[in-house]
């Protein structure tokens, strides 16, 4: 027996990629940086942190500067045509790279998972399959858990939903954090519950969004940690924005920024 | 009342939605399906006393009671004892007025504390539901570890043989939590469910280290 229609899209994407299996990472392989639009413009330090981590690990990097956006806001908003166009552009920009790394679970899921269901046999689906979120790439592809970082503070981790459920990168992120020197890691209560960002949802359904954000703030504060860390700056923009608005001293950092710390 | 045109129109619409190229559907004789996978991580031990103990414990979790009667011929006496000790009125077997009903189970499922009961006649159809107390009787050999095709063999056979009536899997007394999620027993169906298992003595209490 076979699965439902969504499954079949995913199978179709797999089949059209058959024979282009990704090999193990070989030293000297170039990694292309995929820096999401909002990180480029609002949180460039996250991008810089990613660069410094890879430089420390001796990984060859490139940054194709013509990249713009993966198209997730269009896709989530039901604008398929625009999403397809942006996916095609992403594929053109990144097609020559075997490894593409992004410091974001949600953009990672868009390219790695949703390009495949959006258009299973497209170049975007093929190229998208080569995208890795930062944590999974470090732990599962490079086989590194200790990146030589030191961060002598208490932290708790917020798990972006797409990273958690679509990419399964929570485990890798947690392992990386716990391996950081002198860190005091505290598990966030109700970690599986969405923070309420959801892209455009954050403004079109702002009451719901901030209600969910409130619960996340309360849980983060309850850990007593000094820093709230996440692999997704979008979630942090929302929760951090709420914390800041309330005058909280709880600071937010992207996982990459912690891993880049010495 | 039943209009063939209605039926044709209805089914044609379903077929059209499925984008059938070959017109109206026929009924396929061979229905594809593999046997269901076993549902429980519970590894069935070979010994009946363990199944009996598990059944008793699971049924207790849903507020049902279990009684063991080693000698099958003594079951009527046990029923009489239960009836008398609780002051139950048999009402000459009139299901509508009796305080209790005796049901025969074709299978008992240890994993969930459930009993499979099949009623095939009009006068018995409300026996599992109307009286306040239900007494279910089965032999220990009817114990199965999990809810599986094997455990439900009698149900599957009744369905396949064209039997009429109802096969019901009963797990404890009737319950509701519709008011503030507060558990209340005996909502509409029986308040008490007692299962008598014959052919086995009461299983030993487990001696945990």
């Amino acid at each position: 027996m076979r699965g439902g229609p969504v499954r079949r899209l995913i199978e179709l994407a797999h089949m059209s990629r058959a024979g282009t299996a990704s090999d193990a990472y070989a030293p000297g392989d170039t990694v292309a940086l995929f820096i999401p639009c909002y990180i480029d413009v609002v949180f460039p330090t996250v991008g810089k942190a990613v660069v410094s981590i890879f430089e420390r690990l001796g990984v060859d990097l490139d940054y194709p500067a013509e990249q713009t956006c993966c198209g997730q806001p269009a896709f989530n908003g039901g604008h398929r045509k625009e999403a397809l166009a942006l996916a095609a552009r992403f594929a053109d920009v990144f097609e020559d790279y075997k490894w593409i790394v992004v410091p974001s679970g949600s953009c990672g899921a868009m390219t790695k998972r949703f390009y495949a269901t959006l258009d299973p046999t497209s170049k975007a689906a093929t190229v998208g399959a080569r995208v890795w979120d930062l944590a999974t790439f470090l732990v599962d592809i490079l086989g590194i858990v200790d990146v030589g970082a030191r961060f002598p503070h208490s932290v708790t981790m917020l798990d972006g939903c797409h990273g958690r459920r679509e990419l399964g990168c929570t485990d890798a992120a947690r392992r990386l954090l716990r391996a950081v020197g002198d860190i005091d890691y505290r598990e966030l209560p109700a970690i599986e519950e969405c923070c309420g960002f959801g892209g455009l949802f954050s403004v079109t359904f702002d009451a719901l969004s901030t209600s969910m954000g409130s619960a996340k703030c309360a849980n983060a504060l309850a850990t007593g940690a000094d820093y709230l860390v996440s692999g997704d700056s979008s979630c942090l923009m929302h929760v951090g924005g709420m914390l800041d608005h309330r005058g909280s001293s709880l600071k937010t950092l992207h996982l990459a920024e912690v891993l880049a710390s010495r | 009342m039943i209009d063939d045109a209605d039926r044709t129109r209805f089914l044609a619409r379903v077929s059209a939605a499925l984008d059938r190229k070959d017109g109206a559907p026929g009924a396929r004789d061979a229905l594809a399906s593999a046997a269901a996978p076993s549902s429980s991580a519970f590894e069935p031990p070979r010994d009946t006393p363990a199944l009996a103990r598990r059944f008793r414990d699971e049924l207790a979790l849903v507020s049902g009671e279990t009684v063991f009667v080693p000698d099958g011929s003594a079951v009527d006496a046990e029923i009489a004892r239960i009836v008398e000790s609780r002051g139950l009125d048999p009402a000459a077997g009139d299901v509508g007025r009796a305080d209790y009903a005796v049901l025969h189970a074709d299978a008992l499922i240890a994993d969930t504390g459930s009993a499979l009961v099949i009623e095939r006649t009009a006068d018995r159809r409300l026996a599992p539901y109307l009286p306040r107390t239900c007494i279910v009787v089965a032999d220990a050999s009817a114990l199965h570890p999990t809810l599986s095709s094997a455990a439900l063999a009698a149900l599957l056979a009744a369905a396949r043989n064209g039997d009429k009536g109802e096969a019901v899997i009963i797990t404890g007394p009737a319950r509701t939590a519709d008011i503030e999620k507060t558990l209340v027993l005996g909502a509409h169906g029986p308040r008490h469910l007692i299962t008598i298992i014959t052919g086995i003595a009461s299983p030993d209490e487990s001696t945990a280290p």
Partner: protein
Amino acid sequence: MTIHFDRKQVHDDLHKPNAPAVLDASMRRAVEHKHAAQAAIAWDALRERAHEIKAYSIEHLDELLVRFEREFIARGGRVLWAQTADEAASRFLEICRKHGATSVVKGKSMLSEELELNARLTAAGVEPVETDLGEYIVQLAGERPSHIIAPAIHMSRQDVGSLFERKLKIDYTDDPEALSEIARLRLRSRYLEAGVGMTGANFGVAESGTVVVVENEGNGGLSSQAPPVQIVVIGIEKVIPTLDDLVVFLQLLARSGTGQKMTTYVHHFLGPVDGRAMYCIFVDAGRTELLADPIARESLYCIRCGACLNVCPIYRRVGGGAYGWVYPGPIGSVITPSMIGMEDAGELPFASTLCGACAQECPVKIDLPHLLVHQRARSVDEGAASSTMENSAVSSWARAMSSSRGYAYAVAAARIAGVFSPVLPWISSAVRAWSKQRSMPKVAAMTFKDWWSER
């Protein structure tokens, strides 16, 4: 009769979340309970199997319906087909008239809610009597059920006590046991007097023409068996191929919805014994709309367990009534626009962060987030999306993203506007919505692109 859907009320409810706090707490407990029950078995393997069975069933629905009909008739039952709610009510009333029934005892049926069957019966002089305790309570209160599994979850015991005191003319009590006993006694005679008993169905097994109904209270057994005539009102999507397939679902069902290992009663109706009559009314009522959409048809796999509601952060905050129709939560947001119409219900699929908690819980592995996005796309395509201002904002933004130059322009405009987006009219309302409780994100003095190009 057209279905009543108050678009404005739904919009208001989604924007002013006000479910009682007890809902969030009870959903949380339900989820913990369920996960414990699920951990005890090979849960994921079962879900996989269930998904495959449903996929097969929906793809072969027409054949299975014909097969079920054949077998059910061979068991002495009669099958009727109702394309619309009107037709369903007509068929139902024809049966009542034929058998001289003036009252109908009802087991819980979401489908009968959809069809507004109670109102139609009442209008025709046949009295519907809800027997499920939660449904009995909301019927008495003149309200709509707020949760698939627990209809009166939104009412406190004091609410119920006052209701019974007022409507049943009895002394006030708010003890749940006493209240249940009152309901039980009131309904006793109703079961035994009714000319017709009705339930929905969880499954119809094509192989054997048998009908499966699960419940805890015993009212389903009494409603279906006490009166001389039994009517099963069943959505077409409920048919599955074989009895072995049924076993998979029996293992799955209770642990999904309520976290019990089994519901108290799993009824398997084998056909009418002598002196009784049994009817199945198969209902379409918009299901072929879903079926005709090759992606959305996956939503027909739903077994109405309520698992997606339990974990949905939106449902927990807005409650069941906010979804405007019979089915709340993620599944409701997917199917309501197809069955009611995108114009009225098109906002529902947007009220989600696509967090995926629902898909993770769904026992038949329906990819609910994918279906929500699919319905959003349909809403946009049909021009029915809730805000055209938003649509043009997304279009302009996407245009900007389609070239390096457009991107650079957007960044420059963002510096001027203080926000990262080129579309001003929509922006001011978005900024307002963001800033109520959050500091605004700031455009960095030097973007990553700038920094990299200077390296």
